[in-house]
């Protein structure tokens, strides 16, 4: 019996492939795609405000509200702008760091620096955000240091500036690692050739290293951009008045107002933004560098 099945499958290789793929495919379809479809469909439903039950009749009210109410536009713009600002900051910070690790540091220093980049990832996300709260607060470590140096007080705590700072710190390792990996793959011979042909360090950086490491930079930006776009804990903990992200509105709509359809409608926006972003970065070769 078993031999028969084997023979049958051997003559039809596509069956073996299908059997092998079926489990992950079912997983993908049921738990991933189905959830997304359900999310999108429920965006067209509404909620009975007193009994809290979902009304399964089609309506565009959720989307109409999102478009006509300027507050939601502000929230969406704030979220996307912050994701872009954090990505840019991390790209600028990660570049010299990754370049130093790969090109200049000796083997032992290199290991130590790589470990330094990774170690914060072992520590709880919440602990790191709370640590920043302690640093930035009015009577915190930063103001204490400024006081010792006879410099004026800062009041960055609980503001959009604080969110930007904390996000840039949190996601920096996710930018450094792919950039370092991309730089590692550039053969030393190319840099030597560039120097032999009379290019200075600046020209080599601009015309050899940067273009060749760009896919790594773009791959890192997928992490920093998407992680910022979907976060709601950092804005809640270090943000001030007027720091709500799309995630905060979604969270409040589900957890506080029990309005899942509205939350679903707003949650489709980051999905679309991310899809557009991935389409653009695919053209820049980001997926080859992952």
């Amino acid at each position, binding site marked *: 019996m078993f031999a028969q099945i084997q023979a049958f499958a051997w003559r039809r290789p596509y069956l073996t492939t299908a059997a092998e793929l079926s489990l992950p495919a079912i997983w993908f379809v049921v738990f991933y795609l189905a959830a997304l479809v359900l999310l999108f469909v429920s965006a067209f439903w509404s909620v009975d*405000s*007193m009994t809290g039950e979902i009304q399964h009749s089609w309506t565009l009210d959720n989307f109409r509200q999102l478009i006509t109410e300027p507050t939601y536009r502000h929230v969406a713009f704030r979220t996307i702008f912050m994701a872009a600002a954090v990505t840019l900051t991390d790209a600028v910070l990660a570049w010299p760091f990754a370049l130093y690790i790969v090109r200049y540091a000796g083997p032992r220093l290199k290991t130590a620096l790589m470990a330094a980049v990774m170690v914060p990832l072992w520590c709880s996300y919440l602990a790191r955000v709370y640590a920043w709260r302690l640093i930035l*607060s009015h009577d*915190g470590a930063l103001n204490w240091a400024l006081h010792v140096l006879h410099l004026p007080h800062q009041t960055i705590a609980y503001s959009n500036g604080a969110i930007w700072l904390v996000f840039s710190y949190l996601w920096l390792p996710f930018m450094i690692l792919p950039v370092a990996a991309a730089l590692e793959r550039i053969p030393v011979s190319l840099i030597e050739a560039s120097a032999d042909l009379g290019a200075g360090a600046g020209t080599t950086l601009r015309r050899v290293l940067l273009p060749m490491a760009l896919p790594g930079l773009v791959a890192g930006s997928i992490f920093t951009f998407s992680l910022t776009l979907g976060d709601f804990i950092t804005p809640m903990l270090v943000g001030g008045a007027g720091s709500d992200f799309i995630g905060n509105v979604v969270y*409040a709509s589900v*957890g506080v*107002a029990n309005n899942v359809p509205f939350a679903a409608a707003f949650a489709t926006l980051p999905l679309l933004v991310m899809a557009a972003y991935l389409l653009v970065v695919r053209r820049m070769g980001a997926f080859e560098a992952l």
Partner: protein
Amino acid sequence: MRVFVKSIALAVSLPIAAQAQTPTAIGPGEGALNVVAWEGYAQDDWVKPFEQQTGCKVHHKYAGSSDEMVALMRQGGGGLYDVVSASGDASLRLIFGHNVAPLNISLIPAWKDFIPDLQSPAFNTVKGEHYGVSYEWGPNILLWNTEKITPAPTSWAAIYDPAHTGQITVPDNAIQIADAALYLSKTKPELGITDPFELTQPQMDAVVDLLKQQKPLLKKYWSLASDAVDLFRNGDASIGAAWPYMTNTLRDSGAKVAETIPKEGATGWADSWMISAHAPHPNCAYEWINFVTAPHVQAQQALSFGETPANTKACAEMDRITPGSCAKYHADAPQAYFRQISFWKTPVRACGNGQSNCLDYSAWQQAWQLVKG
């Protein structure tokens, strides 16, 4: 609107039909009890003695928000949990949603010792029918740092005052709209706000205007109790709306803070124990409510959470555990103190005056999001 009015009428008439089902005596316990409660409402200090005395094994689930409580009580057709410690902003939703059963209050002997205003309050008693038994309460007070804010404020105007820009904090909660409405009801009587939880659209617009003017003055909308404590302890905020729990926590850590109920009055929360309409262990549920409304548990609960018991006989017990605590938590305060408090209740479309042009909770929630931006 019409549909809604009808459903309210239905909601009010149905429970009355169910009146006959309320038990006339507490039968033998079922051996288990599933509790949905606020963090700290099912402490071993009184859960263990309860289990020993009644044989009802307690399984508790702590909820993080009123809305989570409502969702839990509706889960699985409402038959998963027996009792819930619902706050006033959730209790009416549970009643109108048919999620909780009417109670026979004569089976709760401690009830007659309650503060009169908490015996049949609007947030757990509808048309004379009890759906919940009051448990503990607390006011939303004005809290300030006595070193930075002088002289001591006496009005809620202090949290709308540009002189305190960047030092103010208020809760991140739609029910905070009621605090602003309460302030406007005294300072702008021409708006005609009689109950801060019953607002028409023009009244809501005025409240939202005030809150939008307040937003640039704020340091932060606090969402966790620990946020508010941190803000005051680290010097980021000097004045704001908070709970007595925070005053006590801050004082214990040496911070110089003071609290008051301003001259306009204050809003307050009050929690009620309610029994699920489909409770699998109704006898244990009654036993539980009797146990936790007794003076000594009321006192233990009040001191462990920092709130005030509904049972007036708990005062002596509180002083026995921690001398002076009864006065500290205003458990012995005269009725005049109590009457300054507008207790949280779920905003619904039906106003108290028979009109149905008030805004419901989902409208409040949206207005709050628009204020926060």
